[in-house]
């Protein structure tokens, strides 16, 4: 398991190849104009990565494809919710994919994550007022993640990507539960300066 967790550290192609397509702008175009081409672009950017995450949960290729479809249907329906939230498009898409896999794979009986997403809606913030910098913040978080110690990276990835509860991480890695938690706390302390730049 250690080897598996380590081997998926190599990252894919850079997300924004030549001229920068800003995924936050794509989301705003969907929310404001129901722009289908913007959705297609967003799918091309993130679809393959969302599928890669889903496959790591041990789902079949067909189910992973379906979950990717569901994720982007949700992105389409909920785009208005994003525009009044803050942060980077990738963060928002991660949370949508996460909620979906909880609903579909674990069949939890309620939707606490949706309830919370709706809670921060109060704002009169004009759409698009928070754009560009947030994806740069995410880039810095990604760089900081790669600079964590291998032990810290391992527990973070097993938790966020492989969807393992802390107790199962302890068994897989062969360390006490308390050590899993303390490694996560240390990882958070290392990431904190970058995370605090988020709006």
């Amino acid at each position, binding site marked *: 398991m250690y080897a598996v967790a380590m081997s998926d550290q190599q*990252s894919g*192609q850079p997300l924004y190849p030549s001229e920068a397509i800003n995924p936050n702008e794509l989301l705003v175009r969907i929310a404001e104009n*129901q722009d*289908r081409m913007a*959705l*297609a672009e967003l*799918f*091309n950017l993130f*679809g*393959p*990565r*969302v599928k*890669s995450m889903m*496959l790591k949960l041990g789902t079949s290729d067909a189910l*992973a*494809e379906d979950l*990717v*479809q569901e994720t982007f249907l949700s992105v*389409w*329906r909920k785009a*208005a919710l994003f525009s009044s939230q803050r*942060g980077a498009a*990738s*963060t*928002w*898409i*991660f*949370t949508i994919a*996460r*909620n979906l896999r909880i609903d579909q794979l*674990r069949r*939890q*009986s*309620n939707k*606490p*994550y949706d*309830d*919370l997403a*709706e*809670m921060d*809606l109060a704002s009169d913030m004009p759409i698009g007022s928070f754009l560009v910098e947030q994806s740069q913040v*995410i*880039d810095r*978080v*990604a760089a900081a*993640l*790669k600079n964590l110690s291998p032990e810290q990276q391992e527990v*973070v*990835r097993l*938790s*966020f*990507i492989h969807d*393992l509860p*802390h107790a199962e991480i302890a068994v897989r890695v062969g360390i006490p539960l308390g050590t899993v*938690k*303390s490694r996560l*706390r240390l990882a*958070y302390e290392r*990431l904190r300066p970058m*995370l605090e730049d988020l709006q």
Partner: protein
Amino acid sequence: MTVKHHPDISTLMAFSAGTLDEPYTTVIATHLAMSEQGREIMHRLNAIGGALLESEPEAEIKEGAVDRLLGSLTGEGVQPLPHREPASVPAPLRPYLPLGLEGVRWKWTGPGVAAADLAVGKDGKSRLMLMRVAGGRSVPEHSHGGQELTLILRGAYRDRFGVFEVGDISDHDEDVEHQPIAEPGEDCICLVAVNAPLSFRSRLVRALQPLFGL
């Protein structure tokens, strides 16, 4: 309300990763509904997932997947923002308490102490319950076989870690012993997630435990 006691950051990370059992998820979600600062921290933690998603390798997507996606949008508009009525029970807890806190059917579990199990899906090994402790009364001293999350919904209690008021959460691992005492005045009502039976110090309480369903 100003929340003073927050969950352990590793618990919040598990919530953000989506790996907590239903009872723990519900306690954390309810706490976040009551704590703006907590939501702020959660907002940041989610960016860890966002950054990891950006660093994922690209899996091969089936040909025509984009067309399939665009094809299924037919007649499907972007949803308008939802509007929710404010209610006495925070939103994440409402599905478990259709009648609110007033409609709870309490079970006597000791002098001044009552509890009620809330219905969660069967697959988990942990429990979600409400505890009600009369003002000035105490829960017998106990430790936990696993993690115990306690969120104050009403009133307040005090133990060796301080005073816990509405919105505060206590996040204890196994081997922590404590004896909460409700502050004088109104009943203290808590939402609790536990994944193992509590272990009481007193042999008498331990003997009675099965009777009281603790």
